[in-house]
């Protein structure tokens, strides 16, 4: 039986994390992004010359190195998971990882969880999606403290950055140290259903994206069937985003059809673009928000 590769030591992890942070800062700068705002990871990948495709294969993601580099993502994963997987695969691109299928098989036989390349790509994904300056801003603008934030507050910050609730908790504790591991563990006990219920007042079965008046990003990505909670008074310019009802915390909409919908308050003080992709969209990322073809 082959010996397992030894786990990465703590100093090695710190060195890799530092390398990942520097690469994330450089990738954002090269892609024309600032160092604090939430980003569209597909747009950043394309800006860095990487084509992003969604397929219906039961996998997480894959990076294909070459003259026309590509990231392949499974549409079978939840929307926030797809974004994280894309950031992870972009990390492989940045670090120029690429192996033959035989090498990958051989490597996987030894170990898969303590692979420095995977740790590097994962850490890069956290830093590029959730820069610490942006995270601090997201909490402080709402008058929240990361160390004491509730599960619902964490959920709203996760929505700000287009990542999953658990992914945010991992990054806050293991990535940037804004919360303790114990706090992250305690917050993980809250179910997504209970958090959504707390935010909108009753159970929302489908995924809910919350965009309050403090939202940092001017765009919000969803797919058909998802619910969106927008600030009180907001109106959608297009029936592709259908108003459902008012709640105590905002207006609830449902993404009905693909396209890009402008949402704005009557006084124009708050505006956002809701970009709706088909449910479990298969295709090139750049085409995912094209209006539906009525003749098809």
């Amino acid at each position, binding site marked *: 039986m082959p010996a397992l590769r030894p786990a990465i030591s703590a100093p090695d992890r710190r060195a890799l994390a530092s390398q990942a942070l520097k690469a994330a800062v450089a990738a954002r700068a090269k892609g024309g992004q600032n160092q604090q705002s939430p980003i569209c990871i597909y747009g950043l990948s394309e800006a860095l010359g990487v084509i992003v495709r969604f*397929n219906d294969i039961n*996998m997480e993601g894959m990076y294909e190195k070459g003259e026309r580099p590509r990231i392949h993502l499974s549409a079978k994963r939840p929307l926030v998971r797809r974004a994280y997987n894309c950031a992870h695969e972009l990390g492989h691109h940045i670090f120029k990882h690429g192996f033959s299928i035989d090498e990958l098989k051989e490597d*996987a036989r030894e170990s898969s969880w303590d692979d420095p390349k995977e740790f590097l790509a994962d850490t890069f994904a956290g830093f590029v999606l959730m820069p610490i300056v942006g995270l601090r801003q997201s909490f402080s603008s709402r008058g929240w403290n990361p160390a004491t934030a509730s599960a619902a507050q964490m959920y709203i910050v996760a929505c700000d950055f287009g990542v999953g609730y658990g992914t945010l908790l991992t990054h806050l504790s293991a990535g940037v140290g804004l919360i303790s591991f114990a706090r992250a563990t305690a917050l993980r006990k809250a179910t997504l259903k209970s958090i959504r219920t707390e935010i909108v007042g009753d159970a929302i079965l489908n995924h809910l994206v919350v965009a309050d008046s403090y939202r940092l990003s001017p765009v919000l990505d969803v797919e058909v069937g998802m619910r969106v909670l927008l600030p009180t008074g907001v109106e959608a310019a297009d029936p592709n985003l259908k108003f459902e009802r008012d709640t105590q915390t905002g207006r609830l909409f449902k993404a009905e059809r693909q396209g890009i919908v402008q949402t704005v308050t009557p006084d124009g003080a708050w505006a956002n673009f809701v970009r709706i992709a088909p449910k479990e969209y298969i295709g*090139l990322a750049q085409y995912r928000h094209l209006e539906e073809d009525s003749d098809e």
Partner: protein
Amino acid sequence: MTESEGNRRSDIAGRLREARKLAGLSQGHVAQMLGLHRPSVTEIESGNRRVSTDEIVKLAELYDVSVAWLVGDAPDKVDQSDPRLELAARELTKLKGDDLDRLLKLLAAMRTDKSEPADGGDR
């Protein structure tokens, strides 16, 4: 048109339809993007209308697939031992045989060259 020409046109039509769907586009989208009439795209994908070399190149670019694959001059599936295939895939070994097979077919269709010649020449 001979029978073999008809078969070849039908094969190309089938791959054009498959490539469009893999790109996430409808026939209407393609018509709009290339300045064609919608029925022209339908006819091309039915094998009822000849598709010019220029159109093939444009469609390949739009769909991010190789011209060689579209015209049937490239293998339907990537060879696992091809040294040009370089991947980072943490869960490749966990893929079921059928999923790996579909992935290798998908990779075979993709363009690999920034300036791919119209007559193909990739994998």
